[in-house]
């Protein structure tokens, strides 16, 4: 009964990981025979300017994106936590991009934010611009983070609302009777009580964002001048498209290691949270 699952999973996931580990230690170009080069590809990861820049962009996108989704998620979850028809509507409205392919969301926003897009057309009528949302090297990174936050904060809202609905009503009412303001209640009672969910959401956001690819391809295609290339973009569009398979797999292994490390953190946090709930 175990066999089909184990076989498919092993061939399609475990074997490629082993192959990646092996190829990353060679100079294979995809055709000729591979020569063992030791850790040279890994050393190059830290020297190669494209890789270090993509690493920095990935870190910026992951950290600011995760914090942005978390902050907006919390703000709106506090507004929308009560069960009502209108709150449910607004939660759904915040959530819907989460079910649409990131690739398509990126294309839509690139059509809106481009030089001839809706925003710049409106600014032009006001005598401003054009603003290079996607064509200015620094602004493009900010735009990328903004679109990612737009697409993902609704998921955080739903997570936090589920957490907030477990906060006992009596606790909040007791604080109200003691004369606590709404702000004090939120800061001193509600947010501490949902802090385990906040921690898990933060790591989920980070794990999701360090492999961000689709939205980069469709929103900026890594541009301008490579300023929005992430590690995943580099692996799939530059290194892999070239013939430097050894180096591309070293990048892939690096991404796996970072992703695994973050996932281990989320598992540890979740276990701690389960233990706390059990005690």
């Amino acid at each position, binding site marked *: 009964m175990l066999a089909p*699952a184990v076989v498919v999973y092993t061939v399609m*996931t475990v074997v490629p990981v082993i192959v990646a580990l092996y190829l990353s230690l060679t100079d294979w170009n995809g055709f000729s025979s591979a020569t063992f080069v030791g850790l040279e590809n890994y050393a190059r990861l830290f020297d190669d300017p494209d890789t270090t820049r993509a690493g920095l962009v990935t870190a910026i996108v992951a950290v600011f994106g995760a914090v942005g989704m978390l902050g907006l998620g919390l703000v709106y979850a506090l507004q929308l936590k009560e069960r009502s028809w209108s709150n449910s509507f607004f939660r759904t409205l915040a959530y819907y991009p989460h079910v649409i392919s990131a690739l*398509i969301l990126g294309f839509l926003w690139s059509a809106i934010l481009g030089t001839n897009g809706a925003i710049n057309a409106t600014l032009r009528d006001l005598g401003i611009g054009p603003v290079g949302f996607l064509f200015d090297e620094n602004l493009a990174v900010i735009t990328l983070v903004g679109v990612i936050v737009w697409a993902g904060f609704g998921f955080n809202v739903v997570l936090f609302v589920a957490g907030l609905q*477990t906060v006992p009503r009596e606790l909040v009412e007791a604080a109200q009777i003691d004369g606590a303001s709404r702000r004090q209640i939120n800061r001193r009672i509600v947010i501490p009580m949902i802090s385990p969910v906040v921690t898990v959401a933060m790591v989920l956001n980070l794990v999701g964002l360090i492999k961000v690819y*689709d939205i980069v391809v469709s929103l900026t295609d890594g541009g301008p001048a490579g300023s929005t290339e992430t590690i995943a973009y580099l692996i799939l569009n530059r290194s892999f498209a070239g013939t430097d398979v050894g180096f591309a797999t070293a990048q892939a292994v690096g991404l796996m290691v970072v992703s695994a490390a973050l996932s281990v953190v989320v598992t540890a946090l979740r276990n701690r949270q389960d233990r706390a709930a059990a005690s």
Partner: protein
Amino acid sequence: MTLNLSPGAARTAPPAPAKPPTAGRGRPSPIRIALLTLLFAVMTVPVYLLLVNSFKSQQDIQSSPFALPFARVSLEYLEAAIHSPQYNVLRSYGFTLLLVVAVDVLCILFAGPAAYVIARSLKRRTQILLLFFLAGTFIPSAALIVPLIHVLRAIGLGNTVTGLILHDVAMTLPVSIFLFVGFIRTVPRDIDHAAAIDGAGRLRTYWQVIFPLTRPAVITVLILNSIGIWNDFISPQILLSPGSGTYTVTTAIYAGISQYSTDMTKVFPNLLLAVAPVIIFFVYMQRHIISGLTVGALKG
């Protein structure tokens, strides 16, 4: 703290205490009004632009993107996208749906019995197997797919739909098995024993007795996997070369837009065709989808 999010739980949850959101406080605060107005604007404007600009000429799209000039609105651009000979999004629905159904069926067929064995076994070895599957959730697709191509070529599945399906199944197995194991463990073992006494083998016990009892978990897994596969871009893009002529919704859009990027009368209608089925599905099934995706993310 535990989150009660399963679809079944959402349905059977006791009715909320009858307390409107702003009871006792009179009108909503100005901050709330401002925040919700902003939310409404930011979330609806992109969809509004997508809708209205799918029916306008290039000139109208670029000069007045927000306007809806009734006199000049036309269905011709949408029709052109529907009948487009190249990178036809509408035609790619079929293949994408086939992919989704194939992956869903195989995933349930493989993950269900495996999860049953893992959930019922007391052996340490079998428990380690669960960790072995869970490790798969750590691996980003972008990192896995480069070496996977070489593996698929070696076993003769390079650039084939079969290879793509098997890869997608392998990607969905870890979370599916994990969710099934958790759910099966809540089903009393007495039921297994009763089935065994009646002469049912293990496989039959699973499919005829346990599987129907795990319906909420099956629904969660189906939603999670279907949306994931429908929206997936990396796997079909890398595993099916453009020469194969087989496109999913995402790869068709990608191939199309790299061809006609500046022709907005093609971009908007094609994007509209691409999001329409997902939005309709979401509107109909939103409660199941939201709770399914949340459970999948939290537990997966």
